[in-house]
């Protein structure tokens, strides 16, 4: 009787424990036949469909073939959830070994102390440092150390709908802000539900090209103060220009909130122009039979200046396999891998590839590479997320007409000034 009870008790206890311990399971290192230990490294990314296929069928298998003792566990995390999921796992001590991070996240992660100093972990770091473009590389730098290496770079250029341009009688895409305005007038004449331009909101990725092209900026060059820049005269001109376009119905009202199906509208000949990155071509690929062309960001008084995007590969301090992870970084930055990923629309970051036939003869990379010559990066600062939130809101308040430019942006600049100073 008692014995039977004991058996039950053991079963219940085992079930209980197993429920609890499942979550704590750790991937064991297994010895391969050669006696070498097999190591699994985790790599989180937010690659798109086309890119994932290349990564999983070409890049990772090639790496694993070259490094039989290293397995790469790639995990796709949607961009919008990426930062949150990552934060949770850092707090829990279960950060991945490597991630492909938006360039704008790196200063924050580095500042938190979450990232490994790549220039200390990789003895051959200088080789890579010199091989990549300096612009994208700079996004990995914080206080005397490099915390990552660039993986790919991009920028936004004007994509225009050829059919709508033809209907409106526009022959060449607008080169200046004035031309952009007159072209918008012609597009609007096509119908009340036709829009000249669309973007998803007033966040940095959307508004910064306009601010910079009008000669404005978010902060001074040394990133110490926003007042006088974000609420400066040139920035005001840029926002006034945008507000005018919104008020006239030239920009799709989705920019004010609620978003917009920009690609759908573009494909249905309802939206004439978009600012897009190099992923547009392989993903959109004229699925609706829309012909489109490429043009630089229209130039204002500050020139034609777009925003630099892209991703860095960074290693976490919590990684137990730093050497193996570094090996994967080296592989991702090899010419072969960079070219393989280039086929999916990822612009390589290796300088030597710029002269390769592939890049030279590429269908559309040329347009983006040209824009990249003048493109600027968003403020590389550990408090970036908060900074961006503040002026995204101010932009919305001004564009919807809820507040005057002064009211919205003086307050925003003041709050950002406070964030820029970091406690030592």
């Amino acid at each position, binding site marked *: 009787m008692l014995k039977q009870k004991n058996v039950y008790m053991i079963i219940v206890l085992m079930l*209980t424990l197993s429920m609890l311990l499942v979550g704590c399971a750790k991937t064991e290192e297994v010895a391969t036949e050669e006696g070498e230990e097999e190591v699994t490294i985790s790599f989180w990314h937010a690659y798109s469909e086309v890119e994932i296929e290349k990564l999983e069928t070409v890049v990772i298998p090639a790496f694993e073939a070259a490094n039989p003792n290293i397995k790469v566990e790639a995990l796709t995390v949607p961009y919008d959830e990426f930062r949150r999921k990552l*934060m949770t796992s850092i707090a829990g001590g279960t950060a991945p070994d490597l991630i492909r991070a938006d360039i704008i996240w790196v200063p924050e992660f580095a500042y*938190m102390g979450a990232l490994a100093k790549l220039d200390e972990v990789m003895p051959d770091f200088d080789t890579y440092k010199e091989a990549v473009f300096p612009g994208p590389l700079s996004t990995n730098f914080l206080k005397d150390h490099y915390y990552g290496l660039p993986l790919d770079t991009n920028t936004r250029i004007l994509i225009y709908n050829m059919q709508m341009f033809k209907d409106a009688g526009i022959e060449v895409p607008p080169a200046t802000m004035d031309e952009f305005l007159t072209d918008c007038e012609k597009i609007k004449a096509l119908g009340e539900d036709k829009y000249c331009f669309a973007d998803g909101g007033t966040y940095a990725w959307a508004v910064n090209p306009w601010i910079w092209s009008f000669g404005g900026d978010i902060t001074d060059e040394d990133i110490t103060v926003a007042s006088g820049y974000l609420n400066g005269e040139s920035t005001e001109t840029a926002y006034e220009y945008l507000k005018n376009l919104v008020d006239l119905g030239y920009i799709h009202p989705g920019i004010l909130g*609620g978003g917009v199906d920009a690609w759908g509208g573009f494909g249905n000949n309802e939206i004439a122009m978009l600012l897009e990155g190099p992923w547009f071509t392989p993903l959109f690929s004229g699925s609706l039979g829309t012909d489109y062309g490429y043009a630089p960001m229209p130039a204002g008084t500050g020139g034609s200046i777009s925003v630099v995007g892209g991703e860095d590969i960074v290693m976490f301090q919590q990684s137990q396999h730093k050497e193996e992870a570094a090996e994967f970084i080296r592989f991702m930055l090899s010419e072969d891998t960079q070219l393989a990923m280039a086929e999916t629309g990822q612009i390589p970051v290796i300088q030597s590839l710029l002269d390769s036939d592939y890049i030279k003869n590429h269908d559309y990379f040329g347009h983006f590479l040209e824009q990249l010559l003048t493109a600027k990066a968003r403020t590389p600062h550990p408090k970036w997320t908060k900074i961006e939130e503040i002026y995204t809101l101010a932009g919305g308040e001004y564009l919807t007409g809820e507040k005057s430019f002064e009211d919205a942006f003086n307050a925003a600049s003041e709050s950002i000034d406070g964030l820029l100073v970091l406690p030592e």
Partner: protein
Amino acid sequence: MKINKKKQQVFSAYLFILPGLILYLVFLIYPILKAFQMSFYEWSIMPGEINKFVGLANYGRAFSDPIVGLSLRNTILYTVVTVPGQMILALFVALLLNTITKGKVFFRVVYYIPVVTSWVIVSLLFKYLFQSPKGIINYMLVNVLHVIQEPIPWLRAASTAFIPILALGIWKGIGWTMVILLSALQTIPPELYEVAEIDGANGWQKLTKITLPLIRPTLVFTFVMLMIGGFNVFISVVMITNGGPLQKTEVILSYLYHQAFDFLDFGYGSALSFLLALIIATLSYLQIRFLRKPEELA
């Protein structure tokens, strides 16, 4: 070793609740205590970092933060609109289903389907329905019903952006309330209605004098549960407006989520969650205290 029968039974009872109890402690009680601790600190998410004790500063900050006031107002608005909305419509449906004889199961399933669908999916669906200028709702209102001339910019205007969230809250909640009320209706003995009919009572009198008083405990129960649910509105807000435009549709949970997971201000986020918990606990206590009759408080 000899244990008497009684003790053995008690022991095995504990043994059987042990798995559930451990899960409850690990996944509910521990996080709650941890969050309570965090709310007094400037909490760093890096393991091993020293966290700065700030006392009640996070709580103090909540009282001077205008968005907290706004999100509290929105949370209350959501509760005040969706709780009666769900209860009245659910009661109506339950009364209808209680009287029909054919297709009862079918309609019960139809009304219950929204309850079992995923919040995320129906939120996206509602966002899609309320698109502007070319959403289905606008199309119905402008082109089919001709109620309005111009499409309404639902999600763009602060004044209308909350409407899809309210509509979703009511639509999705009717089924659950309906099932609970229906089961209560079925416990009412039919003789009572027969007697009332003989005495010449009309339908309205039967509803107010027999039905409602007899299902009163159930009504109070659903009221309390729906109110707690209303204060916890979160997924639909994050998915449909994400607090926008210009933070005008932020509710307490979405706002504290942004504070904690976007700006990594876990101390402030935790403090907000405890303030919300305090409000819910107080309201629930008051409801039960004043709405239940002493004989129902068993």
